[in-house]
């Protein structure tokens, strides 16, 4: 099986502060990676580099066979990114936002509308799809953001705290779109290993120094052990 992600000596600094320091990592296509770590460990930075939204400072980064940042154009449109912000325009409705995204990703008229209907139904947002995003709750915005993330059927999902703001029903609904059964390669950043460890193939823990301090099969990591590893990584 070929690699979806290959990182060799990845480093990224923000001024004097080092966010990522010599990350080596590879991930097979179709598998799920859980990224754990304390606040400020560089998890979001890692995800943004993989999404082509940040340039790596040093090292080699390959995503879906493309070398970043030079070949970012080859993978844009094949990645579904869910960050801390929903990336939705507050003055447009959910449906208008999804229609806008669909056009940017080259989805055409009826195909796009059918896909948007399908996603709004799947997230139980079909009745609120016409409301402006500014009028929606944080949980509803998150459901729409997940619709946006998977609208174009991406090969690789990069998910930063995908469950944030979602209630139990919401978590169950979006699981069908971004969970392990989708068959897509997934990188999931979370602070909640207890809920997500069972869905992953591999887990890495980033330490406060921006280095990988723990890298193992997810099945080998007990949720309590994972929690201890996160707490330990801060020291």
């Amino acid at each position: 099986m070929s690699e979806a992600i290959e990182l060799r000596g990845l480093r990224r600094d923000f001024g004097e502060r080092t966010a990522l320091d010599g990350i080596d990592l590879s991930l097979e296509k179709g598998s799920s990676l859980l990224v754990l770590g304390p606040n400020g460990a560089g998890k979001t930075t890692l995800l943004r580099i993989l999404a082509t939204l940040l340039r790596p400072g040093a090292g080699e980064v390959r995503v879906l066979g493309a070398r970043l940042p030079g070949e970012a154009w080859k993978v844009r449109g094949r990645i579904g990114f869910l960050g801390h912000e929903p990336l939705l325009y507050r003055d447009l409705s959910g449906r208008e936002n999804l229609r806008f995204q669909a056009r940017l990703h080259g989805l055409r008229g009826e195909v796009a509308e059918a896909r948007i209907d399908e996603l709004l139904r799947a997230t139980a947002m079909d009745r609120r799809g016409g409301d402006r995003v500014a009028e929606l709750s944080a949980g509803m915005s998150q459901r729409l953001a997940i619709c946006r993330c998977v609208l174009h059927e991406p090969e690789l999902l990069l998910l930063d705290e995908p469950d944030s703001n979602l209630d139990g029903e919401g978590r169950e609904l979006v699981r069908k779109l971004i969970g392990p059964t989708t068959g897509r390669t997934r990188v999931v950043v979370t602070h909640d290993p207890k809920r997500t460890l069972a869905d992953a193939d591999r887990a890495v823990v980033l330490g406060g120094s921006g280095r990988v301090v723990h890298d193992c099969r997810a099945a080998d990591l007990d949720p309590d052990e994972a929690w201890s590893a996160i707490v330990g990584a801060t020291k």
Partner: protein
Amino acid sequence: MTPTRVAFAAILGKDLRAELRTLQSLPAMALFAVTTFVIFHFGLDRTALSGSLAAGVLWVTVLFAAILGINRLFVAEREEGGFDAIRLAPIDGTAVFAAKAAALLVYLLALELVVVPVFAVFFLDSAAALPPLALVLVLADLGLAATGTLISSMAVNSRARDLLAPLVLLPLAVPLSIAATGAIEPLLALGGPGYHRFGTWLAVLGLYDLIFLLVGYAVFDFLLED
């Protein structure tokens, strides 16, 4: 890659829809311009203006009103994550530049549809100069839209964007202002419109437009990146 014309239409449509819904830029631009004309009307204590004074009052007012729109051009992209959403899509940065410049051009044309008649009522004796004046303003707006889009995309990432955009834009707009007022001046001359060196100034405006559209085309991909 998504075809550039599709991405262009999507971004332009999104911007115009959001502006129509929220009216965040255009009413402020128009109100600023009309208020400025009122201030000039009483400040200069003149019932009619002509020549270079009329050209200066009209163009400077439009330019300053445009800055209000330029400051807000990328605010939704910055504050609502639109930059990330756009960069995640398989589109050419040129489409973003073209769409944003087109949106700003539409704002400027809409602004002038309101404020030029107001200017004529306040300061002109006849409306004979308005058709050729429209041609000058369209050419000047095109250059202002190209420059304004470039500057706005850079300034929006700064916390001092409201200061930065005018500080960088105004020096770049000096050649545009010279050409625009140079073309407008004979049109608003006493005794009716004249066309002294009119063609030359139109050519300068066209050259300015071409240069800044090409600069935008060449550099906008880099401006969008981290």
